[in-house]
């Protein structure tokens, strides 16, 4: 495969498209599929065939606005229909070429106009399982350019210049990581894509893998070329069956087109990828635990150093990047590191995908430039809190993150800003809570999650989270005392500072941040045996004075 051949494929896709007057894109991501968008697509295909119009009906990945699913996008008019049912197919088919179906139309300009799509540029636009669709949208051009015109050092320089930082949550500079692996001694090296997305309420990586899998494969191949690896693994959760089946199909296609395998792009570069399924352990998102899991061992973390960059999979230098990080690589190589660095804030460049969930009007996936205010995401793009309720807190970063109150909504979203107010960027989960949520109960929920997901290796995380859960349960049931609160804070510091891996070190964050911003709710539970939000059941009012 050469760049000229890519051009030919792209040209033939364009010629094919010119035959049609309209294109109907139907979202077949997990969200819309759960509402039978496959039946919608089938019905639409039948309806347009019956109508005799020249229309192409395409399966696509996620369009972002999961709350309004199933979504259907009609091109070239760019008409977006929401809550489409199979019974609407004939109406839509009839409307083609005329006025759009008003009652189905989704008019959320604010939602889409404020977003900047880099990672999601193809999501909802291409058929994820057709490599030709990806190639027609500049796919694999970055890989062949890198292989033919750039040295590995040159690739790393572009990534460093872009200022890209790890999107899995840690925010480690990607260029620096690549440089370290490239410099590590060893004839065998590995590239691993971390798709073990486990945060409650987060589905960024799943959507990318379902909607544009070739983008991740291309990113991995470029990374492998830059660090000198010839073998890659995608570690993806078995709970993402659609992502796994699409990845499997795409791997086959990429090999068939000579974009993976031996002698890629008529160069001596060899690279192939294998899929490894995770069995649903949250801790396997931690890189050393993930490596243990790929090796077939129990998924428990190891102390670092040595870092995987020096001694990783089977003791070899290993590059581990998150799905979203790798999805950023191809556009950076195509458009240059400087282009990427032109977006975002001073120390956090580019864009970030967030999964908006909870008490918010426009549940779904959004991609915004770094530095945008939380308020703009929640009230603007997200459409605010529905049902006349009042915003109370936003939880970023999943179980490792913190809950931020209204007063913090004007900070710009960046790794450093979120860290400075007691939360983290994390992988991009954003859970919005309104006045019906009890913050003590929220903290208890996240600690329970960490307790059940702790691997059990180190004592602070294993026993510490269990004790914190017990203390929070006491407070939530009205049995808590001020001594319990003091003990809870004491445990937070030990679990945070003494735990072995990131899971334990960040597990107290939801407790610490709710104690910082919503301490009065804890006090109310303890001193007045009252849950201000009316969530917690108080059991033991009579025991208090005993």
């Amino acid at each position, binding site marked *: 495969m050469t760049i000229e051949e890519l051009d030919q494929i792209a040209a033939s896709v364009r010629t094919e498209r010119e035959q049609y007057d309209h294109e109907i894109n139907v979202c077949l991501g997990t969200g819309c599929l759960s509402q039978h968008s496959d039946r919608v697509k089938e019905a639409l295909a039948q309806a347009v065939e019956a109508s005799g119009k020249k229309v192409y009906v395409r399966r696509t990945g996620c369009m972002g606005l999961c709350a309004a699913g199933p979504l259907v996008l009609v091109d070239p008019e760019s008409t977006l229909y929401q809550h489409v049912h199979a019974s609407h197919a004939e109406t839509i088919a009839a409307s083609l070429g005329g006025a759009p179906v008003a009652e189905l139309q989704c008019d959320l300009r604010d939602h889409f106009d404020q977003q900047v799509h880099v990672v999601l540029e193809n999501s909802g636009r291409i058929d994820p399982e057709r490599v030709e669709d990806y190639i027609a949208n500049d796919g694999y051009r970055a890989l062949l350019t890198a292989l033919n015109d750039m040295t590995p050092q040159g690739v790393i320089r572009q990534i460093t210049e872009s200022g890209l930082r790890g999107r899995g949550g840690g925010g480690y500079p990607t260029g620096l990581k690549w440089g370290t692996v490239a410099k590590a001694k060893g004839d065998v090296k590995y590239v691993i894509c971390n798709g073990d997305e486990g945060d409650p309420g987060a589905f960024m990586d799943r959507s990318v893998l379902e909607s544009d899998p070739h983008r991740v494969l291309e990113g991995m191949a470029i990374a492998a070329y830059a660090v000198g690896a010839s073998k890659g693994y995608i570690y993806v959760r078995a709970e993402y069956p659609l992502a796994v089946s699409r990845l499997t199909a795409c791997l086959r296609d990429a090999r068939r087109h000579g974009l993976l395998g031996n002698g890629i792009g008529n160069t001596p570069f060899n690279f192939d990828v294998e899929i490894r399924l995770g069995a649903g352990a949250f801790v396997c998102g931690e890189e050393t635990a993930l490596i243990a899991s790929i090796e077939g061992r*129990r998924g428990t973390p190891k102390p670092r150093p040595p870092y995987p960059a020096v001694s990783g999979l089977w003791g070899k230098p290993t590059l581990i990047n998150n799905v979203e990080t790798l999805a950023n690589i191809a556009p950076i190589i195509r458009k240059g590191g400087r282009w990427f660095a032109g977006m975002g804030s001073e120390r956090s460049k580019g864009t970030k995908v967030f999964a908006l969930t909870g008490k918010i009007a426009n549940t779904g996936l959004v991609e915004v430039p770094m530095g945008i205010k939380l308020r703009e995401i929640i009230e603007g793009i997200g459409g605010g809190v529905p049902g006349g309720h009042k915003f109370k807190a936003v939880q970023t970063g999943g179980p490792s993150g913190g809950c931020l109150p209204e007063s913090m909504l004007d900070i710009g979203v960046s790794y450093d800003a979120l860290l400075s107010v007691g939360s983290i960027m994390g992988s991009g989960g954003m859970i919005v809570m309104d006045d019906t949520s009890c913050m003590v109960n929220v903290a208890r929920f996240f600690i329970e999650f960490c307790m059940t997901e702790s691997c059990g290796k180190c*004592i602070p995380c294993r026993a510490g989270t269990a004790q914190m859960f017990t203390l929070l349960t006491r407070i939530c049931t009205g049995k808590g005392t001020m001594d319990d609160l003091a*003990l809870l804070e004491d445990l937070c510091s030990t679990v945070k500072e003494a735990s072995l891996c990131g899971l334990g070190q960040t597990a107290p964050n939801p407790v610490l941040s709710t104690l910082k911003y919503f301490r009065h709710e804890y006090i109310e539970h303890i001193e007045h045996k009252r849950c201000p939000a009316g969530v917690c059941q108080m059991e033991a009012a009579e025991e208090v004075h005993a």
Partner: protein
Amino acid sequence: MSPVETDVKTLVIDGKEVSAHAGQTILEVARENEIAIPTLCQLDGLSNVGACRLCLIEIKGSNKLLPACVTAVQEGMEVVTSSERLLKHRRTILELLFAERNHICSVCVSNGRCELQSMGQQLGLTHIRLPYRNPDLKVDASHERFTVDHNRCILCMRCVRACAEIEGAHVWDTMGRGINTIVITDLHEEWGESSCTRCGKCVQVCPTGALFEKNKIGADHPKSPDFLPYLNMMREAQ
């Protein structure tokens, strides 16, 4: 001339200047210089896992606490092995252990010879602030010579490592996650029904009364885990 790379590192531990070979851990160097750092999961002769977190130390210039058992020395490092902050964490970790399962010293075969008990005394632990979890755990006495009492296990994984690394049998392993983790023999067979070679190394390395020999208590039951480095040395010599 390029600077000469030397194999010897000099560093400061608790204000004392010490020298070390490159690749040695802070714990090894501290012990050579009679600086005591508390440990539970670490045992000479077994691989280090850095799991008990008692050996955490401070390094000047870094806010992070690092486990001395797996952290290699570096030139010019300034190590602090005891401080208010470290003592607080070490005591809390011990409290977490004592409250996690059913550690009742007075009825334990290892009373007076238990590493957990003596660590508590050493660190001046006078009481447990945390609620006792009192889990309902099994005792497996199916083996003809040994018994495992999960109520006294602290999950240090010494038995797992001794069985896999020294005996080469890998009968012991772990099951379950987080607070529900337990050590198991084979695929959770009873110990007596397992592929155990009956060598007893796991019993000797167990720091508490979780693994013990039948018909022996207290003074009859001294554990001597010191044979491991000797065994390793003799094997290497062969």
